[in-house]
């Protein structure tokens, strides 16, 4: 029972996630819009981000257990191994028990577009780290 096979999951998509993805897309050029595809019992969001001078391609998976479990955000564009990058180019963005309100996934407040915006912030940090060797925000606590 999950996102695509329960009434609650479908309602969440129709009333919360899809309207906000459409609003995000309205404000962007076609090449930076989010494309959505079914992926098993969940969804996959494909999009590009350009936080500074480079364009990155990303994939966000909303698993069957979404929104209880956070989205999984993966970089498809190869990058250098760096802090906060997990195996398979998965971005480390959410941490249970974190005292930072935005580092702890909250299904009552966050949407998949928040995950996209968090990925943008992550990539902006990566670009600074790539040039300076310093991750510009402290580790999530």
């Amino acid at each position, binding site marked *: *029972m*999950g996102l*695509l*096979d*329960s*009434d*609650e999951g*479908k*309602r*969440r*998509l*129709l*009333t*919360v996630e*899809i309207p906000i*993805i*459409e609003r995000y*897309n309205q404000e962007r050029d*076609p090449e930076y*819009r*989010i*494309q*959505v*595809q*079914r992926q098993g019992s969940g*969804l996959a969001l494909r999009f590009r981000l350009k936080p500074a001078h480079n364009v990155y391609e990303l994939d966000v998976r909303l698993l069957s*257990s979404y*929104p*209880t*479990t956070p989205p999984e955000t993966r970089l498809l564009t190869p990058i250098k191994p760096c802090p906060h990058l997990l195996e398979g180019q998965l971005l480390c963005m959410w941490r*249970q*028990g974190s*005292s930072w*309100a935005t580092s*702890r996934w*909250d*299904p*009552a*407040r*966050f*949407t998949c577009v928040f995950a996209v915006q968090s990925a943008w912030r992550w990539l902006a940090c990566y670009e600074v780290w790539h040039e300076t060797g310093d991750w510009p925000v402290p*580790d999530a606590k």
Partner: protein
Amino acid sequence: MVHLIQVGAGSGGMPVLDMVCRDLRIGRVTLIEPDVYKAHNVVRHVFALSAVGRLKAEVAREWLLERRPELQVELLVCDLRDPAFVARIDDAVQTADLGVCAADNEETKYHWDALMRRFAKPWTLGEVLAGGIGGFVHRFLPGGPCYGCVASHLQRSVTVDNAKAPDYSQPGGPAPEVTIPASKAAIGVIAALHAQMTLKLLPGNPGPDEQPPFTSLLLTLERVPGVFDEAYRPYRFRVARSADCLICRADATPAPASAAELDAALDQALTRLGHA
């Protein structure tokens, strides 16, 4: 005759079920519990060593009937989210008067919350904090805050005990409060509070408007620097329904009513977004 529906009969859920069902107003129980009783459960569970290998649901039914032979006990030996049991679970929730959630994972809690809201049933939830340093009991009434409202509001900085192995990959090394399993005593204290708050929702008690003015009760059991300043201290939280909550806001947002309409609308939206 009150029909109680409960999910979970683990080390926390079974004492709650036992204590609530001692009340003669309870005439019918539906228990949803898929697990088998295992050897590692014995240290914290009320069931005997001799029950290892049996379904917890069946042992729970025997336990209840030994004490209340006239009780109607129905078992749903399934995961709450099992698609094959949707209709039976819906039927049971629809006829229930009161729900108890004694599940130890967030997905089940959110799913239970959605079920209870869909059928407008009051329910309670108990949560023992990792290490048995304290615990929460939450009370949910129709039209009030949902589990998402409450969990988001409390912004918990301690993790709930789910009886899984501690995560030693946490930076800074393992902290005592997440490496020591909750004791049976700690589980029993929170279970008793959970049962007490559940019993207060039974007919004959004050109505929803006259219930104590809090949704969540936290009782600390240990002093943990940086987490709890002192042991045995109660905190009461009155959490309001949040207009911005993405969990229960969907209830009030217009969406197709029937399953077929819902599927058609979703297909259209995904087709649209597939070619964005």
